[in-house]
């Protein structure tokens, strides 16, 4: 279900890092020795075994991150991102695994299309990639994809992300049929008769600027519908890019009732509100839109208490000329792979709003659990999937420095604290600063 190019396993000793794996219960200054891509020893004063030695004094060694929501734009818009460029960007952001959404051109709705991606990933992917396949053919909402064959061909989950499954009946059939595959449905919740033509969260900012409002209930009524259907069918679902206080409340309630639902939140929804839209910068335009402060606070609380189990960038590359237009004409979406950890560390961990341990868990073990992926861990015998983090380093987000082919980041020019010094993915060094 995960694909990457074959690379020889690294032989490295990471010396003197603060080893932090909240799930393993490790937080101590230790050496970690990696033999042929597998963690062979953890302890003090380890022999180098003639391995390369990385002096990690003052740095943090954590499980590498998993991003469950990335748009690789391949096939169809390779000018915006490719499997190679997207996975290089992921490596630079400390990710060892990313999951790619199927809303490409053509849509990933057949084993043939999926097979070509799997093959390319085997040649090009710097970190592991899992591919989601569509729930409905062409994401048109009227005919299920051949889910069993897609699962056999390697689909890790199913999603019509970008658009909702509009019909409740279709959603029910998808829940029923996908159960035979053991793969989850990952749902973009948007009632389009409510969000219709909306560019900006319905509230004071949209009213003042004149934008048609995209109300938070456009998300939450669909969240409520899908939770009800999931409960009725007894099937698990994952809710993509949650943005509103009402959606969070619905998810919390459903989980308390025993419905197997999980959720994710993006860095931009955790850090920004619709106030940022006053700039009319197309790089703060995304779907779902930035919402109000009460929504932001509710998302952060849900992330802290575990109601929301994972952070997802919703990395959505767009060509420069497509974003260099009036706000209203710009497509939805922003990039995020290369800034996710740093912006959350700077804006949430440093001010004391989120413990570092929680951030690491929600960026690594959380998404692994939701999608049934082996959890990256700092433990003897585990495949090395590690992020070496420099929490002291300050850096400026430079549009020319992105590995991504696109630069539609909401953080251009921002100063961030916390940088990825090295990423080891699937046993190999995938990135070094």
């Amino acid at each position, binding site marked *: 279900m995960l694909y990457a190019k074959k690379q020889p396993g690294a032989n490295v000793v990471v010396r003197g890092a603060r080893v932090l794996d909240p799930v393993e219960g490790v937080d101590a200054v230790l050496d970690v020795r990696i033999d042929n891509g597998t963690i062979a020893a953890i302890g003090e004063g380890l022999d180098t075994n003639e391995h390369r030695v990385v002096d990690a004094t003052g740095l943090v060694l954590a499980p590498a991150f998993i991003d469950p929501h990335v748009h690789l734009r391949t096939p169809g818009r390779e000018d915006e991102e490719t499997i190679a460029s997207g996975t290089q960007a992921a490596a630079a952001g400390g990710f060892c695994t990313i999951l790619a959404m199927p809303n490409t051109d053509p849509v990933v709705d057949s084993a043939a299309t999926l097979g070509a991606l799997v093959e390319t990933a085997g040649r090009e992917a710097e970190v592991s990639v899992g591919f989601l396949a569509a729930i409905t053919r062409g994401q048109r909402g009227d005919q299920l994809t051949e889910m069993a064959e897609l699962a056999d061909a390697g689909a890790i989950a199913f999603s019509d992300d970008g658009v909702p499954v509009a019909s409740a009946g279709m959603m029910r059939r998808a829940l029923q049929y996908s159960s035979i595959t053991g793969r989850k449905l990952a749902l973009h919740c948007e009632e389009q008769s409510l969000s219709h033509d909306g*560019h900006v969260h*319905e*509230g*004071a*900012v*949209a*009213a*003042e*600027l*004149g*934008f*048609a*409002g995209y109300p938070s209930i456009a998300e939450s009524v669909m969240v409520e519908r899908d939770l009800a259907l999931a409960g009725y069918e007894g099937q698990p679902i994952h809710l993509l890019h949650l943005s509103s206080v009402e959606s969070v409340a619905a998810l919390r309630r459903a989980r308390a009732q025993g419905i197997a639902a999980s959720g994710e939140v993006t860095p931009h929804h955790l*850090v*920004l*509100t619709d*106030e*940022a839209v006053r*700039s*009319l*910068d*197309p790089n*703060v335009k995304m779907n779902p839109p930035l919402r109000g*402060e009460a929504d*932001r*606070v509710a998302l*952060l609380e849900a992330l802290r208490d575990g109601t929301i189990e994972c952070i997802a960038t919703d990395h959505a590359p767009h060509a420069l*000329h497509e974003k*260099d*237009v*009036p*706000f*209203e*004409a710009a497509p939805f979406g922003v990039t995020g792979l290369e800034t996710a950890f740093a912006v959350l560390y700077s*804006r949430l961990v440093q*001010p*004391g*709003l989120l413990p570092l341990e929680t951030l690491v868990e929600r960026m690594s073990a959380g998404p692994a659990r939701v999608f049934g992926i082996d959890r990256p861990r700092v433990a003897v015998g585990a495949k090395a999937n590690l992020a070496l983090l420099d929490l002291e380093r300050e850096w400026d987000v430079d549009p020319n420095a992105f590995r991504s082919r696109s630069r539609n980041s*909401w*953080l*251009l*020019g*921002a*100063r961030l604290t916390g940088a990825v010094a090295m990423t080891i993915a699937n046993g190999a060094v995938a990135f070094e600063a």
Partner: protein
Amino acid sequence: MTSIRLVRDDLRPPGPPPRRHLLSVADLTRDDVQRLLSTARTFESALDREVKKLPTLKGRLVVNLFYESSTRTSSSFELAAKRLSADTLTIKSAGSSVDKGESLKDTAQTLGAYDPDVIVIRHPQIGAPQLVSRVTEAHVVNAGDGKHQHPTQALLDLYTMQQQFERLEGLHVAVVGDVLHSRVARSLLQAFELVGVRCTLVGPPALLPRGLGAEMTTDIDVIKDADVVYVLRMQQERMESGANYVPSLREYAARWGVTPDRLRPGQKVMHPGPMNRGVEIDPRVADSVDALVETQVRSGLVIRMAVLYDVLTGGPVGVRALAAAEVA
């Protein structure tokens, strides 16, 4: 871990020192508004002369870039520039490269190559003037961007009211109609706030936007209490079947149309034009002596002269300054 606060101070890198634009009423101070109104008054007195042209902006280039149909605004910007002796170039989207799919950025940069001093832009999309200000070196004046802003309309309306009532502070204006889709209403609200005009928004529920933070009612009878009834254009293109903002224009006219019996005798009525007679405004109201519609158009000319002058010179203009400009 108790306080959760918003940090959003560094979205953009620091840019070059700001050029003077008029993009939104939100960017203006009360002093700016007073200065523009008094500049307009100065220009108005000059227009009473036999030769109406002033040499003030001689040698300057004003480009009017209009992506939406417009009679009033485009003609008054063009005439304003000409009355100030500026060169003008008016580009309408129909018949230009825009028809060939040229992007706004490319069109703006192409025109920017002529080094215009001012680009006046009207565009159906919110944020278009901001884009032009990013990609050219010109001073940019927003002549209407989508449902967002139409700052010179708000200024000319203030000017009209001030001429009529000899004050602004304490006036009460009822704004009636499709507030949701109206850039005029949005600009007016901010302008009213700056100068101390009380405003009541009146219209059907779905056309009064949530979160605007203004006094709002669906009850048309309240307009009788206002000094001015400001009637918004019912944008018929937005009322297509299926949208259901109102069940029909017929019911809208019956419920919210401004008719003689909904007004006090002598009550002043304004409208930004173009009017839909028989929909939002009864023809008897439109043609009455209390309708200030033509005054608004005349105000538009002097306000736009004042705006062009102001963005280019950046200072207050008194009679003396004007006289000096005439000598030069």
